[in-house]
């Protein structure tokens, strides 16, 4: 339970200090007919710095609420949540956020959309431009800076969203089914792109919500199964990195985990 204190003497204590810490976090909503509905029951969860954790579960199991709580969009009704050692709201400047739909603003060009988050954080124009161009290049959209969102394909749009998220240089990436709206082929391409970005930079903490079990195992360090507002299972994936999406599915550990979770998804 108290794993962080146990590890306090380890040399990498700094690194293991959890980036996200939930203690007995409960979320309830009032029902329209009176009374309350509990969406999350007393969740305890520690996400160490630099870990890539996938939250899987059926739709309506509370995984998105859990993510929203870390993003400070939902307040816990009781219990506590800490991100980067502070409250979730204070940690917001260090968050990146990605949704199933790309949520690009249609009146901004690809470049303008990547700049959006930087603009909200008050970065000056020249720096913003530079960062945005740089990140568009890294997601292989160099030359598309001036296109409007309607001129881009689904996959390109989601890659602009990737660049927008990454341009903020976040410590924590919160992703809510970010690839669910893409067709199968594009999804693999964008997943690969994402995995390369994540593996190549400084290790950022990722909380990744998905109902796609294969995606969770292939991408994450740790898979947390959520069901009916509780954590039902919590497993380290333990497949070595850097991974390659094409070969990872053949890994015995992948098969094993897939079997283990399949019944509950």
């Amino acid at each position, binding site marked *: 339970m108290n794993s962080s204190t146990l590890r306090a003497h380890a040399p990498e204590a700094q690194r293991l200090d959890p980036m996200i810490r939930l203690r007995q976090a409960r979320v309830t909503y009032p029902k329209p007919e009176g009374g309350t509905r509990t969406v999350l029951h007393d969740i305890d969860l520690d996400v160490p710095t630099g870990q890539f954790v996938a939250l899987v579960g059926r739709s309506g199991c509370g995984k998105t609420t859990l993510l929203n709580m870390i993003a400070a969009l939902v307040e816990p009704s009781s219990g506590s949540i800490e991100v980067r050692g502070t409250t979730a709201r204070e940690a*917001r400047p260090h*968050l990146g956020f990605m949704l199933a739909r790309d*949520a690009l603003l249609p009146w901004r060009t690809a470049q303008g959309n990547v700049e959006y988050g930087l603009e909200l954080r008050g970065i000056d124009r020249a720096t913003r431009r530079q960062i945005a161009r740089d990140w568009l290049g890294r997601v292989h959209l160099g030359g598309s800076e001036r296109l409007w969102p*309607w001129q*881009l*394909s689904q996959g*390109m749009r989601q890659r602009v969203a990737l660049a927008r998220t990454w341009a903020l240089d976040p410590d924590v990436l919160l992703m809510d089914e970010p690839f669910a709206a893409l067709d199968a082929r*594009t999804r693999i391409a964008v997943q690969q792109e994402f995995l390369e970005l994540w593996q*190549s930079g400084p290790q950022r903490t990722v909380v990744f919500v998905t109902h796609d079990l294969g995606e969770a195992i292939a991408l994450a360090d740790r898979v947390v199964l959520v069901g009916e507002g509780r954590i039902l299972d919590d497993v380290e994936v333990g497949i070595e990195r850097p991974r390659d999406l094409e070969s990872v599915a053949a890994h015995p550990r992948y098969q094993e985990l897939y079997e283990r979770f399949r019944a509950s998804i």
Partner: protein
Amino acid sequence: MSQITASEQSTHRGDDVPRDADFSAPRQPRQRARRRTLLVRGAQLGLVVLWLVLWDLTARYQWVTPVLAKSPKQSWDYLVEAVENGELWSNAQATMIAVVIAWVLASAVGVVAGITLGLLPTLERILAPFLDAANAMPRIALAPFFIVAFGIGVQAKVALASTLVFFIVLSASRAGVRSADPEWLRLSAVLGAKKHHLFWKVMLPVATPAIIASLRLGLIYALLGVVGSELIAAQNGLGQLIAKYSSLFRLEAVYAILLLLAVIAVVLNQVMAVVERRLLRWQPPADH
């Protein structure tokens, strides 16, 4: 990072090419589009000629009461005469000044009021029935009231036209500002947007197409309102000319002025269409 640059070559994804957009449009479709525009203009010209011929025949063979049966030639003669003696220019000017004043004032107030109501749902709920009632009023019935209140100068026309334009712009702005995608707001909140950011960077841009469309419609309604008011009573203006020549049974003059108004309306609408296209470059073309 080196990993990525290394894989750059191999990551050209076939399914990820941009959808067909102007910037890469080959010559063939562009030529076809030009030819189609030519066809449209030609057909429009044909319709005008056909209509002039029908009008002329109607007048020549007296298919309607002789009082009404005035030929295009007679109307044209009036037009030339009115241009020469300055009657047309001074009255058209009076009308257009009132149109512009009414349009600018009512649009400015309408946009502000509409956005305010859009952002304050409770206030909107309180005022909604009153706004509906005010908007349902036949505006021409207010003309005598405005004329008594403001006299037969420019104010009365402006007042009447403004009541039309205001509601058009108000309802469009109100709806527009509310049409923000909740996902944009959710994302913006997490990225650290303050209230003023949300307003200037999300709600206002998302409302712009609706607001511009309503300004375009509002300009035409401003013209209708001003001419309507002038018909009831005014010192000058094209509506006042129509009233005068109707009472003198000089229908050729009435036709000429009505046609002039139609031309003005078409020109205003085209100008607004150009402005709209400029401001809304980010929207996909209608046939996309």
